[in-house]
C-alpha cells in the first residue's frame, strides 16, 4: 500500500452544522442489532403500541392487557413496536485508481463517506466503514453515537490506498463479517477489470439498501491528452499505446458515457440508487442536494 498523504480536515464545521439537520433515511425498515431510534418490523418492548393479539400459552403475562380482559373477558396481549438502530455500511474503494484526480477520487470518496457517517452517528445509527482494495480491507468496526465521531474521522485519516480494484471480493469479505442489513453506500470509480455488474449483484444480495456513488475525476471525464502516448494502467500496469486523435477522443467519451449509463441502468434495474459524482462536485451540493434527492437523507 502506498503511504497515505496528510489530508486537510475532511469536512469543515459549517458544513457539519448543516448536516446536523439530516438523518439517514431507510426506505425499508431494517433489523437492527440493538434497540435504536427507528421503528422496526419486529414487535418489541418499546412504548409505541402496535397491535393486539390473542394470548397464547407462554406469553409474557406482563404484556396482557388487563383493561381489555376486564371489559371483554378475553386475554389479549399488547404488542409494542420494536425500536431498532440502522446500520450504515460505507464501502470505500481504496484501490490505486482512486488516487487519480485533483482532488483525488479517494479523498472525495472519504469526504462523502465522512458526511454520511457524521449524519448516521449524529442520528444514533450504527456506522461501519470498510476501505477495500486488492491489498486488503481497512475496517472501522460498527460504531454508534456522536461519541465515535472522532474515532470515525481518525479512521479516515489513517486510510491508505493502493492495489487493484476487486469489488466482488470486497463485498464478500465485508458482508461475511457484517451481516446486519441496513443502508450500504459504495463509493467507487467502478473501474474493476472483472466488471462491476457481478459485484453489485452480489452486494445487493446481502439485503441492504444499496447506494452506488460513482466517482470519476474531471480528468477522466474530459481527458486532456495529446500526441502519441503509452497509457499505463496504474493498477495492472498494462499499457495501451494510443495516438490521440479527435476520433479517438470522441470514441472515448462515448465509451465513458456508455459506461456510466450502463452502471445507472444496472442499478435502476436492481432497486439500487446510482449517484454520479465527479470529483469536482462541491461536497455540500452533493450531500445536501444530490444524495438527499437520491433519498439517502431525510
Amino acid at each position: 500500500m502506498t503511504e497515505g498523504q496528510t489530508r486537510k480536515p475532511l469536512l469543515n464545521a459549517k458544513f457539519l452544522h448543516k448536516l446536523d439537520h439530516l438523518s439517514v433515511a431507510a426506505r425499508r425498515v431494517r433489523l437492527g442489532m440493538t434497540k435504536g431510534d427507528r421503528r422496526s418490523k419486529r414487535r418489541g418492548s418499546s412504548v409505541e403500541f402496535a397491535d393486539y393479539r390473542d394470548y397464547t400459552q407462554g406469553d409474557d403475562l406482563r404484556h396482557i392487557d388487563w383493561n381489555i380482559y376486564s371489559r371483554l373477558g378475553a386475554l389479549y396481549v399488547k404488542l409494542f413496536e420494536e425500536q431498532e438502530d440502522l446500520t450504515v455500511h460505507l464501502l470505500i474503494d481504496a484501490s490505486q485508481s482512486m488516487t487519480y484526480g485533483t482532488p483525488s477520487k479517494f479523498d472525495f470518496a472519504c469526504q462523502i463517506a465522512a458526511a454520511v457517517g457524521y449524519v448516521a452517528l449524529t442520528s444514533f445509527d450504527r456506522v461501519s466503514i470498510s476501505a477495500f482494495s486488492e491489498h486488503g480491507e481497512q475496517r472501522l468496526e460498527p460504531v454508534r453515537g456522536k461519541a465515535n465521531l472522532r474515532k470515525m474521522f481518525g479512521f479516515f485519516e489513517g486510510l491508505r490506498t493502493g492495489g487493484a480494484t476487486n469489488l466482488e471480493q470486497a463485498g464478500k469479505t465485508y458482508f461475511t463479517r457484517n451481516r446486519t442489513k441496513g443502508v450500504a453506500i459504495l463509493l467507487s470509480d467502478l473501474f474493476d477489470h472483472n466488471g462491476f455488474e457481478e459485484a453489485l449483484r452480489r452486494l445487493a444480495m446481502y439485503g441492504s439498501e444499496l447506494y452506488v456513488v460513482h466517482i470519476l475525476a474531471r480528468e477522466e471525464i474530459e481527458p486532456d491528452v495529446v500526441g502519441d502516448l503509452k497509457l499505463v494502467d496504474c493498477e495492472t500496469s498494462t499499457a495501451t499505446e494510443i495516438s490521440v486523435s479527435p476520433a479517438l477522443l470522441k470514441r472515448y467519451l462515448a465509451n465513458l458515457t456508455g459506461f456510466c449509463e450502463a452502471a445507472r441502468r444496472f442499478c435502476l434495474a436492481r432497486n439500487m440508487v446510482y449517484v454520479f459524482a465527479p470529483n469536482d462536485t462541491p461536497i455540500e451540493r452533493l450531500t445536501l442536494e444530490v444524495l438527499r434527492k437520491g433519498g439517502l437523507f431525510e
Partner: protein
Amino acid sequence: MRVWFDQNLMAARRWAEGFLLAPEYLWLLWFIPIIILLYLLKLRRTSVLVPSNLLWYKSLQDLTANAPFQRLRKNLLLLLQLIILIALAAGAARPFFKTEGATGQSLCVLLDHSASMQTLEGDGARLDLAKEKALELVRDMDKGDKMMVVSFADKAGVLCELTDDRSRLRQAIANITPTDSATHIRDAILLAHSLKLTVQDLHVIVISDGRIADLEEITARAYDLSYLQVGASQNNLGLIAFSLRDPLEGQGGERQCFMLMHNASDQAITTTLSLYLDATVLAAEELTVPPGQDYELVYAMPEIEEGLLRAELSHDDDFPLDDMAWLAVRPDSKVRVLLVADASSNAAYVLQRVLLPDSRVELSLIAPDGFASSSDYDLTIFNNFAPETLPEGSLLFLNAVPPVPDIEDAGELAMPPILATDKEHPVMRFLNPANVSIAKARQINLPQGARSLVSTAGGPLIADVSRGGQQILMTTFDIAGSDWPLRLSFPLFFQNLISWIPRSALGTDVSVAAGAPIPILPEPEVDVATVTAPDGTATQVRLDPLRPVYYAGTDQLGPYDVTVGEDHTLFAVNLLSKNESMTGPADSLTIGRGEFAAEQGSVKQNQELWRWFILAALVVLTLEWWIYVRRAWL
C-alpha cells in the same frame, strides 16, 4: 556467382534503360528497408499513468473495427511513406515513353555524312535520304520549335545553330556534302549534350546508317536521343586493308602486299582485283568472296623503290568508294645519327644501347678527334665535346657548350636538384626526370630566345638553344655522372628527340585514313608547300621551319601530292574501314549506357514523366501529413 550477379545486373539495367533515363537513381529504393526498420523500431511514446486504460483500450478497439482498410490501417503512414519514396525514386530515374513526332521542343539533328552515306540507295545516295529526313523534321516544326544541325563524319561541325528560321535550316541541310572519311560521333554527341545544360528540352536526333566507329569511346552515361535510321542497301564488297609488309628480319625474301576484302552483302560477289604500280599492272585476279566474309590476299612484290600502288576491285555494288585503295611507296629512309664520343666511354655505351634498337635510326660513331663535318647526318650528338663551329643538321650537346653566341659558362653546380620541367616541349612529352640524380652540372646562362627544358636553381640542365631553323639541344651535365641512363625518362627523351628532329625524308608511312592529317616536313628556304588533292585541287600550306606542319584537308580518297620546293611526296588517303564497308544499316545504336533502336518512320521522342511522379509524391506527402495531423483513420 559474382559473374552471374554482374550479368544479371547488367541485363536488368539494360531492361530498365528501356523506360528510364537515369536508372541509377533507383538506389533511392534502398531507403525502403530503412523506413520499414524505423517502423519496426517502435515509436517512442510518452508514458502516462492512468487510473484505468479499460475505456481507452475499448475505444481503440472500436476505432479499429470502424476504420476502413483495417489491415492497412496500422501501417497507413508507412504505406504512404513508401509510396512517396517510390514515387521520388521513380521520378529521379526519369521514366519516359515514346511518342510520335518531334514537336514542341528544341531539336538537335546530328546528320551523318561519312563515307558510308555515299552508298547508293536506288537512284540517289544514302546521304540524300538522310537530308530528306532532316528536311522532313524542319517541315514538321511547329511555331516556336527550334532546331540545330550538326554534321559528323571524322569531325563534327555545327552547320546551323539553334534557330527557328526554317529557311536557314533548309539551307544548312542542303549544304551538307558527303565526305570520304570514317564515322566518329563522339564529338557531335558531346556537343549536343553540352547544349542540354542550357537548353533543357533539347532532343537529339541522330540521322545515320548507324555504322559508327567510336561508339565505345563515348562516356557511359544516359543520353536522351532518337536514332533515325537511313538506308537499306548492304550490297557491297570493299577493301578494308591494304598494306606493304617488310620481310621478317633476318629471313630475307620479298616485300609482300597484303589486301583484305569484306563482303557485306548476303550474296557471294565475284570481282576482279587488279594491282597497279603507277600505270603498270602488277597483278589481276578474279575472285569470289562469300557473303558476310573477309577475304585475304597476299602478293609477293617486286623490288620497288618508289611509286604509287593501287588496288582496284571491278564489280558492281552500291558503295564504290571502297573499291579502290592506294599506297605511296617511298624509299626506305632512316634517321641518320652521328655520335661524336669516345667509343670506350660509358656515355657512348649507353647512347648506343638506347639508339641502336630504334628501327628509325641509323647510328654512326666517331671519336671527337676524327670529327670534321656532319653534313650527311640528320642528328649529331656530341658527348663532352663541342666543335668550334656549328655543323649542319640537328645537334645535341651532352655536357658541352655549343658554339652559340651569348651562351655563358658561369661555373659549376654540385648536386643540382631538378626543380622544373617544361612538359610543353616535344622532346619532354611523357617523361618525368624529377627522380634523376646528377653529381655536378655546369652553370650556364642561356642566350635570349633559348628555352630551358629541365631547370635547377642555378640554371638549365637541359636546354633548347635552337637558332635559325637549326634544332640544337644541350645538357649541362655529363650523363655518365648521373643516374639518368637508368631512368625511364632517358630512352623516352631520345625517342622524342628522334621524332622531333626534321628528317631528310619521310619514313615508309604510306597510307593515312581519310580525314587524318598528313605531315609536311620543312625544307630550308621554302615557305609554302602545295598540296594537290586527287581531284586536282591545289592548296597552299605555309611551312614552319622548325617543325612539321600537318595538312588536315584529306577528305577525299586517293593520292595527295605534296610539293615542297622541288620535292614531290605522295600520300595515299584511304577509307579502309570495315565499319564503313559494312553498308547495311545498324538496327540499333549503343551510345553511353543507352541502346537506341532504329526508328524507321517518324521520330519518336521521349516524353518524360518525372514531373508527374514528383507531383504524385507531393500529393501523397500532403495526404500523409494531413492524416498524421488529423489522425484521420488512425
